[in-house]
Each structure stands twice: as structure tokens, then as C-alpha cells.
């Protein structure tokens, strides 16, 4: 049966058809919908893990015990689970084991542009790369079989254009979920030196065997050679294949479905059959380096950029003599369109906390998620963002750089989900190593930026069933933060936030301020419809303070007086709190 699916949905479908037993992931754009789609397949055990390492290790456990398992992540998530990945490569699997990683060339929603293919080579784990939704389904399904056949985990590599494009998929019926027998086998699964030394030999043999099998027979369905005009031969994979097909339809193309290890003999043969060989790949010269190391002459990054997403236009401009298409509108004659920068939402209560930090003029080490937007005007209240959890570590580092002095004017800022992902180990370290740092946990009771996924503090699991909830206060106490240094505030009370943070900054031990209010976009954070902030125009002095909070639900009219957009106002009261003249009041039920 044919269905139209996102690449991510098709990966989930492929895993379901393969009889996957268990999927454990941490959300991350552009990979999130894979695990969300799996949650809709009721036969499959499925969960949000607090981070990618935990998700991977749970999947490994399921595999060793005999069930097919998968873990999904965005590219930077692969860094977090690299440790188990490198060693499960040695131990191998029992039930098929798949790591699915989604890269983000062009950084649509990421902090870097890393090329995850390097992980395949360095961990010696085979990597498949689908180029559309049907391949997402078919390659994922095959990955489980391949994993068991060669006793290896398999990585599926996606990227934004494959993950977030819909195309037609030929769905098939799911296989029965099978749990294989578990037999104790410490030589295989206990990776201490004596066993790992022998397993490393097995890994190298396994890679050689995969290359030999692929070289002998392309019919595994992964690789595809399309001979056409032999003047130009292109080796490519993934989304780049689609750009090549549009840009130079006359060229001969070797489309790789597995980007590591490579079928050397087949590549040699293709190279010998074309006059000019060009490698088209986004980001790093990964295939190019491998192919050049085989002693094959080819062109690659001397023609194409290391940066960003490619397009058919780009490939055409380099490899085709044909003119590029021209627009029918002369845009030089058009007005400049004003931008639409992402902003903290109308009614986002945590804006109040950032306004407090802005007034305090402190240094702020920030973190990944909605709160990165605190770096933008008007708050401009974030100084540094590196990766998940780093806000806490960096605030501790500020303290150590100045023998504690910086802790008087430095605050770390992190969300609830990110804190549980990898902030907690940093907090433990800061207490243990006697920092005086202050951390603010912005607890909006959800994983916000990726589209509202549950986490261990929200009291619900991935299927929205009730689940035990971590108490952030008790968790902080348990790593040694003194109870009197743990303060809970309502971020809408922006002046109260300012006062409390000031008090905590003056202390000589680690402090944690929990700013707690649910995200304005989830049911527990949404106001009753039709009840909004109200303006008393008699009292308004046109000072503009309410507009400076930059709430999308409040604009100034031509008389510089506020107008509330009743559609988007969430009645949070932040504008009310910043009005010194009582001209704004919260709507009452």
C-alpha cells in the first residue's frame, strides 16, 4: 500500500516492519518525529530517555537480551552516545541494533554542522544513507537484518532534507516481534582487555567481509549504479544524489546506499568506466578522502563548498554548461521585507526571568533550547552557549577562573529537560569542588524547542500516561546544594526574581533558583480562552515599559498606548508586573 510519509515517519515504519521491540531516544531536531511515530505503534516499547547515552545503552541492553532495538538522535546527540557506540561495535549484537542519526547541514536548528559520517569510520560501524522516504523505510528495515547477519550495530544517517521531506512509501506488513534466546557469553559481551583484544580482530574481519560481500553483489539493494553519458561520472549519496539527478541528468551516477565501508572494487570499476570522476557530498570530503586513499583520481571539494546545504542549482552551476534558471520578478525593484526573528512566545513566562537578568547586568552562561532566545533583544541576557548542560559547567569555570570572584555576577541558565540531560552531573561537580556559582533552572515542565516532549520531571511518559516525576528541588539537595540555597520563584514575578537572584549571588556556596511555570503552549500553561490582560487607558502614562518586554501579544498604538492581541495573550501578567501606573491588569475569570 502506498502512503505519503516524512522521512522520519518512514524510518519508524521500517523499524516497525522489521519487528523492532524497543526504541529509546532523546528528542532533537531534525530527528524527533521518528520516536514520536514509533510511539503510535502500540506493540513497540518506546520511551524518551533523559539523554542520548542513556537511550543508546538501554537499546544495547534490549539487543543483547535478544530484542531488536533502535535509538534515534540529532547529530550532536551522537557525540553524547559515542562512548557506548564505539564499544558495542566490538561486542556486536544479539537482536538487531540500529543507531539513527540526523545531521543538519545548513544548521536550520542546530549549533554546529558536524558530519556524522566520521563516526562510522572511527567506530567501525556500517552506515546506511537513504535519499528519500521509501529508502528510509527500506534501509531501516534492512538494517536490522544486516545487523544480525554481520553481528554489528548499524547507523542510519539522515539529514534535514530527508528527515523533513514527505514522499511516497510502499508500506508492507510488520513482522512478528521476536525475542531471541539469551545465552551468557562473557567473551562476547564483557569488554575487558582480554576479550576486547580478540573482538577487535573480529571487527576488522567483519569490515573486510562486508566490503567483500558488497563488492561481489550489489543486489543488497543499497548501492545503485546508473550508467549514462560516460564523460562525467559522479559518486554521491543521500540528498546530494537528488540534487545531482536534477542538475546533471545526463551523467553516470554511482549512488552509495552504504557510505562506510565502501565497495572498493565496484568504485574502481565505475571510475575506470567514466572519463571524469566527481564526488558530490555535503559537508566534509568523507567519500572523497576514502576514494583518494584507494589511489583513484577524482575531484571533490576543489569544486564544492564545505559549508551548508547543497542544491540542484549549486551542482548545476559547477558541473553543467547549461544556463541557470532566472526569476520572473526583478527583486531589486521590491521593498526590503522586514525579518521575522524567532522570539520567546507570547505569554512565555520565562521572559520575566530574562528581564530580571538583563536588569541585574550579570554574565549569563546559557544552554540549548528555547532559552537560547534569551540572547536576542530585548533581553540580550545570555553570554555563551555551547552544548547541552554546559551552562552549569561554564558558570563553575567562571568561578574557578577568578577564585570565586566571578560567582558574584555570573548566573548559569538551563531548562528542566536540559538540566536532566546533562546539567545534573555538572551541578554535582560544582558542589563537590566548592563553587559559589548560581544556577537558574527555568522549569517549563516540558521539552519545549523540539515541540513538547515529556521528560523525567513532567510526570508523563512518551504516550502521555502517568509516570513518576523527579523533584528538581530534592535532586539538587541530594547532590549537596544546601536546602536554604534552593529557591523556587514564579518567573512572571520579574522583580521578585531579581531580588532572589541577587541574594543567591551574594552567597559563598552553590545556589539553585528554580523559576517554575509551564510553557505557554501546553495545556497546563495555557490560560482560559477569552481571558486576557486589560488596559486602563486613563491610567496609562505612555512610558512604553510594557512594550519593552517584547511580548508578541502586546503592541503600542499610534498614541504609544498598549493594545492587547486577545488571540495570542496568555494572561500571564508579565506586562502587568512591569507597569508602574497600574494601567494593566490581569483578566479575571
Amino acid at each position, binding site marked *: 500500500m*502506498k502512503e*505519503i510519509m*516524512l522521512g522520519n515517519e518512514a524510518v519508524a515504519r521500517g523499524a516497525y516492519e522489521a519487528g523492532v521491540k524497543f526504541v529509546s531516544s532523546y528528542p532533537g*531536531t*531534525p530527528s524527533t518525529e521518528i520516536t514520536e511515530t514509533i510511539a503510535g505503534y502500540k506493540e513497540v516499547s518506546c520511551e524518551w530517555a533523559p539523554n542520548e547515552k542513556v537511550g543508546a545503552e538501554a537499546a544495547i541492553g534490549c539487543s543483547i537480551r535478544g530484542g531488536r532495538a533502535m535509538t534515534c538522535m540529532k547529530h550532536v546527540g551522537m557525540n553524547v552516545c559515542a562512548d557506548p557506540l564505539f564499544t558495542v561495535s566490538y561486542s556486536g549484537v544479539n537482536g538487531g541494533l540500529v543507531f539513527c542519526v540526523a545531521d543538519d547541514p545548513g544548521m*536550520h*536548528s542546530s549549533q554546529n554542522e558536524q558530519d556524522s559520517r566520521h563516526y562510522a569510520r572511527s567506530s567501525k560501524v556500517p552506515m546506511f544513507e537513504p535519499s*528519500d522516504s521509501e529508502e528510509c523505510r527500506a534501509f531501516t528495515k534492512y538494517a536490522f537484518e544486516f545487523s544480525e547477519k554481520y553481528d554489528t550495530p548499524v547507523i542510519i544517517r539522515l539529514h*534535514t*532534507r530527508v528527515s*523533513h*521531506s*514527505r*514522499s*511516497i512509501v510502499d508500506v508492507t506488513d510488520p513482522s512478528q516481534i521476536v525475542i531471541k534466546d539469551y545465552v551468557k557469553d562473557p567473551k562476547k559481551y564483557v569488554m575487558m582487555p582480554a576479550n576486547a583484544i580478540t573482538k577487535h580482530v573480529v571487527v576488522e574481519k567483519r569490515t573486510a567481509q562486508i566490503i567483500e560481500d558488497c563488492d561481489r553483489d550489489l543486489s543488497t539493494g543499497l548501492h545503485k549504479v546508473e550508467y549514462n553519458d560516460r564523460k562525467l561520472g559522479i559518486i554521491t549519496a543521500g*540528498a546530494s*544524489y*537528488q*540534487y545531482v*539527478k*536534477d542538475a546533471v541528468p545526463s551523467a553516470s551516477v554511482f549512488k552509495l546506499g552504504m557510505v562506510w565501508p565502501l565497495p572498493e572494487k565496484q568504485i574502481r570499476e565505475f571510475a575506470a568506466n567514466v572519463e571524469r570522476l566527481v564526488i558530490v557530498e555535503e559537508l566534509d570530503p568523507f567519500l572523497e578522502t576514502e576514494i583518494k586513499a584507494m589511489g583513484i583520481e577524482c575531484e571533490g571539494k576543489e569544486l564544492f563548498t564545505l559549508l551548508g546545504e547543497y*542544491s*540542484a*542549482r549549486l551542482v548545476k552551476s559547477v558541473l553543467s554548461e547549461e544556463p*541557470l*534558471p*532566472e*526569476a*520572473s*520578478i*526583478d*527583486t*531589486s*525593484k*521590491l*521593498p*526590503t*521585507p*522586514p*525579518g*521575522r*526573528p*524567532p*522570539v*520567546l*512566545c507570547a505569554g512565555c513566562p520565562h521572559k520575566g526571568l530574562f528581564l530580571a537578568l538583563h536588569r541585574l547586568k550579570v554574565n549569563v552562561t546559557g544552554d540549548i533550547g528555547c532559552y537560547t*532566545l534569551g540572547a536576542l533583544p530585548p533581553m540580550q541576557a545570555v553570554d555563551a552557549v555551547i552544548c547541552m548542560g554546559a551552562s552549569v559547567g561554564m558558570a563553575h569555570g567562571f568561578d574557578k577562573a577568578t577564585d570565586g570572584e566571578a560567582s558574584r555576577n555570573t548566573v548559569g541558565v538551563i531548562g528542566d529537560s536540559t538540566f536532566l540531560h546533562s546539567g545534573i552531573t555538572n551541578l554535582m561537580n560544582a558542589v563537590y569542588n566548592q563553587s559559589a556559582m548560581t544556577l537558574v533552572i527555568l522549569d517549563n515542565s516540558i521539552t519545549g*524547542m523540539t*515541540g513538547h516532549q515529556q521528560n523525567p520531571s513532567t510526570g508523563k511518559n512518551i504516550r502521555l500516561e502517568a509516570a513518576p516525576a523527579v523533584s528538581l528541588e530534592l535532586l539538587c539537595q541530594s547532590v549537596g546544594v544546601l536546602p536554604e540555597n534552593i529557591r523556587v520563584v514564579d518567573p512572571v514575578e520579574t522583580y521578585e526574581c531579581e531580588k532572589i537572584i541577587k541574594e543567591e549571588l551574594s552567597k559563598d556556596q552553590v545556589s539553585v533558583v528554580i523559576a517554575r511555570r509551564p510553557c505557554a*503552549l501546553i495545556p497546563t500553561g495555557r490560560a482560559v480562552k477569552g481571558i486576557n490582560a486589560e488596559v486602563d487607558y486613563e491610567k496609562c502614562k505612555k512610558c512604553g515599559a510594557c*512594550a519593552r518586554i*517584547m511580548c*508578541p501579544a502586546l*503592541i*503600542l498604538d499610534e498614541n504609544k498606548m498598549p493594545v492587547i492581541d486577545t488571540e495570542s495573550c496568555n494572561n500571564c501578567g508579565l506586562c502587568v508586573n512591569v507597569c508602574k501606573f497600574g494601567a494593566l491588569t490581569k483578566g479575571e475569570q
Partner: protein
Amino acid sequence: MSLEASIVLAGVGGQGTLIAGKLLGILAMNMGLDVKVSEVHGMSQRGGSVITYVKIAPEVHSPIIEEGTADFILSFEQVEAVRWASLLKKGGVMIVNDQKIKSLPVLMGQMEYPGNVIDALKESCDPDAKIVDIDALSLALETGTSKAVNIVMLGALSNYLGVDEALWKQAIEQAFEKKPKTIPGNLQAFEKGRNNG
């Protein structure tokens, strides 16, 4: 029935471009054609500019629509029409909803919302291309909800695509099968767009 069309859906987060893209995907699939619908997620919920590409043909490769290759641009908002104008190909058709959604820099007085956008588009456009303006918001409100702007826009597009009306109606019913109560309203919105686009 064969069809080749590259369609850009440009708008602001919350205007329903994603659903319109999905609906076009269903329409093409029902016609036995290949189709790709490419979306950008992430920032869309936060008032950002959102763009969806739909490519329909017997065989579709790249999901992205680039400069000078869009047969149709459906712009759900005036300024977004300007932002993506360079995608319109020679002889293409741009349908612009004359709704204005001011972004925060405009609301804060840091930037100006340009006036006469539709006239400017018409003046800077090749004679063989076409700019069509439509008050999709008012038409949607006549069906009872501003949410139907996306289906009004598809109704307007249907005048240029040459696909049987019955196939459109079937696709609308399929796209909203999980919310059956909204089907009559959406069919009505489609008609309004078709009669006014």
C-alpha cells in the same frame, strides 16, 4: 492525468502551510504521480517565516524549489511574497493573500512594513508571469474560521492547476479524515478560493 508543478507555500508559523502541503501531496499521490513535500520545522511555532516546497511530476528528485523554478507561489502573507519572489519562474503564477502579519521588529518600530506590496510585485514582474491577489482571510472568515486561509489559497490555485474538482474534494476529505467535522467548512473554503482566485 499527468501534471508537473513546483509549488511554493510561503507564510508565517500557524497559517497552515504544512497542512496545505500535505494535502497537495495526497492529491498528487491519488493521481498516481510522484511527489515530494519539503518542510522546515523548528522555528515555525515562534512566529517565524515558514516555507513548504511541493514538487509534483512523474518522477521527482530534489525536494527543494530554487530561484526561478517555481510554477506557483502561494503566499499566505504580503511580505512573505516579497521574501520568496525570486523563486517564481518565467511564466509562473503568484497568488498573494493580501493579509498583513507584522513581525516584532515592525511592531517595535525598528523596521517599516512596506506599503503597496502587491502593486510593487505587479510592476516588477515579467509580462508573461502573473500576480493574483486574494483576500483569503475574509473568505476564510465567511466559512467561520481564520484557520481555513490555507484551503482558500488551494481553491485559488485549483483554477490554474487543471486538476478535476472531484480529485481536490477527495484530497480535502482525506487530509481532514481525522477531524471529520471540519470537512464541510474546508470544502466551502475551497469553493470560495476557487471562485475568487
